[in-house]
């Protein structure tokens, strides 16, 4: 099956089994909504999918090939927005985006970046150090990567944290458009996805003792 396939993943953190033998496939054109209580292992699963942590057992396949062999190709097609936003507070929004694009070998077009920031409601704040912005605005800066880099796979960990209702709607609409364009998204969220996000598959993790 095309896409990112998880095959019998098991994750153990500090002697606690988070999940065992978890298999699923994230295919282009699919939105997976990962659900579960605090401590169920949602973030751990997402980090395993990105390759930042290793699973206890099981493996990941990208288009039928072991992910470890095609890691570089996968990274080019991946945007990960984690719990930690990955933006530096001392740099401005524009600098953060410019350096991030350079790191990810993505062409940076200042005009386009201004437009994206404007769409996210950050007009006039482009050249202010990011730590001066509110939590929601910082989150918007982090999420603007989803507009700047062309990538198939989006792995989003609590992307709606600190966003206001307009922001949530904007992001959900963007997610729906991405899925419609053969993108693949896996996201966690504590509030249910609304109709703006379009159809989605649910993947539930349970809290185990």
């Amino acid at each position, binding site marked *: 099956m095309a896409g990112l396939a998880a095959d019998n993943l098991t994750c153990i953190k500090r002697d606690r089994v988070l999940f065992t033998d978890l298999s699923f496939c994230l295919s282009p054109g699919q939105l997976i909504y990962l659900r579960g209580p605090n401590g169920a292992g949602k973030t751990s699963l997402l980090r395993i999918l990105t390759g*930042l942590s290793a699973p206890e057992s099981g493996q990941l396949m990208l288009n039928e090939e072991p992910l470890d062999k095609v890691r570089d190709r996968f990274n080019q097609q991946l945007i990960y927005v984690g719990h*930690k936003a990955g*933006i530096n507070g*001392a740099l401005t929004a524009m600098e953060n985006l410019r350096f991030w694009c*350079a*790191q990810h070998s993505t062409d940076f077009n200042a005009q386009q970046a201004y437009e994206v920031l404007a769409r996210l409601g950050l007009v006039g704040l482009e050249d202010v150090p990011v730590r001066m912005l509110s939590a929601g605005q910082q989150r918007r800066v982090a999420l603007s990567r989803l507009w700047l880099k062309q990538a198939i796979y989006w792995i989003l960990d609590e992307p709606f944290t600190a966003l206001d209702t307009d922001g949530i709607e904007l992001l959900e609409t963007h997610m729906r458009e991405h899925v419609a364009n053969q993108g693949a998204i896996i996201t966690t969220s504590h509030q249910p996805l609304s109709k703006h996000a379009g159809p989605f598959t649910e993947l539930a993790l349970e809290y185990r003792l």
Partner: protein
Amino acid sequence: MNTLINGIFKRDMALAFRQRSELAQPLMFLLMVITLFPLGIGPGPVTLQKIGPGVIWIAAILSSLLAMERLFRDDFWDGSLEQYMLSGQSVAAIAAVKVLVHWLVSFLPLALFSPLLALFLNLTVDMYIALMLTLLLGTPLLSLVGAIAVGLTVGLQRGGVLLALLLIPVFIPLLIFATSAVDSAALQLPYRAQLAIIGAMLMLAMASAPFAIAYALKVSQN
């Protein structure tokens, strides 16, 4: 290569410029320690000349421990490190560039101050030249080896003490050879051998440290 220059080198330089006060702290610490010595020990030129090289090198090692922590700390806590690892670039190359910038901004200014330090501690011209050479060869070694330990301790709360415990024993050979080079210079003896040993240690560190740093950072992420 472009990625590294535009994405990491320019970023870290811009950040260093924004956070200059934080960068100045270790340097001020070094200057103050060295200023205190002539005051505490007394201005006897012979004594100062005798302890001078050791004092400068010990102060440099201690201040490098202060400066070292910021190398990956912010990137770790704000999540930039995760983004580097997913950028498709080799983490070792990114780490090498970050260490280079760190050396440029925290140790190179030391070279600018060193004539002043030599004056404080009554070093002769020969000793000063030897000191400069050991600093130029030795401080990149401090940065490279220090970065491995920083990579390992970056995820820990209060990693600073552990960092000192890990690093100070490792820096002892460097301290011995560096001060011995300056001592030889004071006696008008050749000190090429000591420089060559420090140079060899630096070469080894340049070749292997970036990979060790990358591995340490990966372990810290897991």
